[in-house]
């Protein structure tokens, strides 16, 4: 039980995760910068700064606050999708189906709001359940039929997309493929703001969704680290066989986990569409990227709910920043490109940690005297 020395700072998991995340961000931005340089060297520096500045581009504080509000409005659903993926990842499940669960949630929320004219709380619940059901399908297929959750998740993403397109085609604007404005048809379905919009220069899209998403992140952190359920979920994720051996209901846990994951993603969609910030296009032929960007936020956040709050904000920050680029010079997808690079780099985090730990250990060993033959192994076994 040796005391931690000051150099133990680097060996703390949280420190390592933060370092790794920062490294990913820096490299991701560098690659993005190079891409901008290739497209048009003249404005590249300005462009990358624009992406990073996002709403700070606006000269007045009021305008900046308003657009900070917009970034937060979109960061909330992103955080929810990230939490969905993360919660499932703790149980060893890669919930790429979050994208489809998000779609299902959007469909259910908008259908309840526009077609059935329900109040926001019911719409929220509907989204939660719809996302949850999509999650449960993946869970059932995984538990009872051994279907890889990645493949089934992807299939459900597309099934969800086309189903929701059909479902919402009845409530679209006549002249456009977009669903009608929630605020104009059913004001009661808009999420309450509790006066928060005043903080953001009367940005009407700022609602309780933002603090709720953060609260849910904290709640998940508590569940994972302090409860029996969290203990089981993590054990199942780390060591499926040991979890089974100890009598945990592995199949049930997988299904519950995916239900929760699906519910989180579904809620995330409601958090966006029930603000009225976006409308659903019933002719869209690709699955919204929110669920996939969630993967970036999760891994960038070091697979920790609290870290994910910051990571989600960051991803949304640069994504929103991308939209301020001069469209006639640079494509705004450069932000997606940077996010994708960051996820790719997140794949190396484990490698980075192993290298770092190996280096730390080697340094420690050099500091100590040469080890006695097999000391570690033998001391333990003998009395």
């Amino acid at each position, binding site marked *: 039980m040796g005391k931690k020395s000051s150099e133990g700072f680097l060996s703390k998991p949280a420190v390592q995760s933060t370092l790794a995340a920062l490294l990913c961000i820096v490299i991701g931005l560098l690659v993005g910068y190079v891409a901008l340089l290739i497209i048009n060297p003249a404005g590249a520096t300005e462009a990358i700064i624009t992406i990073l500045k996002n709403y700070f581009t606006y000269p007045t504080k009021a305008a900046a606050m308003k657009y900070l509000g917009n970034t937060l409005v979109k960061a909330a659903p992103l955080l929810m999708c990230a939490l969905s993926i993360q919660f499932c990842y703790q149980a060893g499940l890669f919930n790429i189906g979050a994208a489809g669960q998000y779609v299902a949630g959007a469909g259910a929320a908008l259908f309840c709001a526009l077609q059935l004219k329900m109040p926001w709380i019911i719409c929220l619940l509907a989204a939660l359940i719809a996302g949850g059901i999509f999650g449960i399908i993946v869970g059932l297929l995984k538990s009872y039929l051994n279907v890889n959750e990645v493949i089934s998740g992807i299939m459900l993403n597309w099934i969800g997309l086309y189903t929701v397109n059909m479902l919402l085609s009845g409530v679209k604007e006549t002249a456009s493929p977009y669903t009608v404005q929630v605020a104009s048809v059913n004001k009661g379905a808009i999420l309450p703001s509790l006066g928060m919009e005043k903080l953001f220069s009367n940005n009407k899209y700022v609602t309780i969704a933002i603090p709720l998403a953060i609260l849910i992140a904290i709640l998940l952190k508590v569940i994972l680290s302090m*409860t029996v359920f969290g203990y089981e979920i993590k054990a199942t994720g780390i060591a499926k*066989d*040991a979890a089974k*051996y100890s009598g945990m209901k592995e199949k049930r846990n997988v299904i519950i986990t995916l239900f929760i994951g699906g519910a989180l993603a579904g809620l995330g969609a409601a958090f966006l569409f029930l603000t009225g910030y976006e409308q659903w296009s019933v002719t869209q032929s690709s699955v919204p990227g929110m669920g996939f960007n969630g993967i970036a936020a999760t891994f960038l956040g070091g697979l920790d709910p609290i870290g994910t709050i910051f990571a989600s904000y960051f991803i949304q920050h640069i994504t929103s920043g991308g939209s301020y680029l001069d469209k006639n010079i640079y494509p705004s997808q450069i932000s997606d490109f940077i996010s994708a690079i960051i996820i790719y780099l997140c794949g190396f985090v484990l490698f980075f940690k192993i290298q770092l730990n190996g280096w730390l250990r080697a340094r420690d060993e050099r500091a100590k005297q040469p080890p006695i*033959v097999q000391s570690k192994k033998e*001391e333990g*076994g003998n009395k």
Partner: protein
Amino acid sequence: MAGNSEYAIEMLNITKRFPGIIANDNVTVQLKKGEIHALLGENGAGKSTLMSVLFGLYQAEEGIIKKDGVEVKINNPNDANDLGIGMVHQHFKLVQCFSVLDNIILGDETTKHGILQKDEARKKVMALSDKYGLKVDPDAKIEDITVGMQQRTEILKMLYRDNEILIFDEPTAVLTPAEIDELMEIMKNLAKEGKSILFISHKLAEIMAVADRCSVLRRGKYIGTVNIADTNQDELSRMMVGRDVQLVATKEDKEPGKVILHVENMTVPSKLHHNNAVKNVSFDVREGEIVCIAGIDGNGQTELVYGLSGLENCTSGKITLSGKDITHASIRERSTSGMSHIPEDRHKHGLVMDYSLAYNLVLQRYFEPEFSTKAGFLKKGAINSYADKLIEQYDIRSSQGAATIARSMSGGNQQKAIIAREIDKNPDLLIAVQPTRGLDVGAIEYIHKQLIAQRDAGHAVLLVSLELEEVMSISDRILVMYEGELVGEFNPKTTTPEELGLYMAGAKRKEIGA
């Protein structure tokens, strides 16, 4: 001088380090041409590391390797192969879904315009098979053939490559006594034909039976080399462990009490093949006795325990624990009804390797009111103090106490943690599956004492073991399992390992009434 050396291979002053451990410390082994040279040592003594160095899987930091008196560098298995060194690994390196022939030629294929030419290979394999009495079916898939035939495939792999130096890494662990005899004959034949053989083992009797000379390793250090003709088992044993070992555990006679575990006509399907792994098995385990299931690896012992613990469903039969029918009970119900299980694979089943020691110590009890609140929160304080108690009581050693991650602990201490957890549940029935596998003598003694203490405290103990020595020394009753059936019941006081061997190999069987 080159080529005239008396030695086929010499490993001189080899030192190989791993982080925190010196696996081989200045080890020297010299293999004469045409001899069978045993390499003796306990688990973890550094035998496998040394052989991996010879085979090019690891590179030594210090020391040199000579072939026929000339220094050589072996950087990978290809180099070893080019020097005529072949190895039968302890865990066979065979591709399950390939045929025997494909496995033999893999890595040394003959092709014509890029297309595999198997006919000549087949002829060569069959010729070798005849010459050395290595019976195999070249077209059978590995997954369908016996362990013995798999091993013969491995040997043919070496012969196919015209290897002159053959390494056998613990080759008898998975064989029946009859197959072991056969292997010994094959090894002698090979030596007679001029092959030089390195035979790695920790089984003294086998070394005495087949080897010409023996080199001993202990804790990574080279202890010495002796001629088998000039030594005996006691001397070898002393060299191996550094002191006299009393492997026979002492225990007093005890009259067993009432039946704790009652198994009736249990049948468990197999994951590996379409037959049942356990066929219609019936037996009892009573209070205050250690019943041992003996048998060769892979005869249904694993599945028997899976069936008992609930990891696998029985297709028929009935299991009662302390009078309660648990045939269809869940794993958790069986555990809380008084069954403890020290699993065969401690890494896969026994521990959540990335959890702390404290979390692992409550793996069977975290849901109890002592460790969690009604609202579903873990009582971390209670868990930690319980862990500290067990660590103290069972002498579990680790670098950071209860907070140590299980993965970073030594094998012996991981096993101690599992034993502490399972015994401290105060179970009516303790099932221990190969609890001493891969551990050193000190840990083995410790575990045997714990098992006997359970028995003496009046609990029922069911031990599954592959080591006849262990079976003979600590059990009160022995049941032999062969191909999924119990084929004999014995009293360790009145039977001999040889007799058990006949039953384990399926040569004899008798009806046993449960």
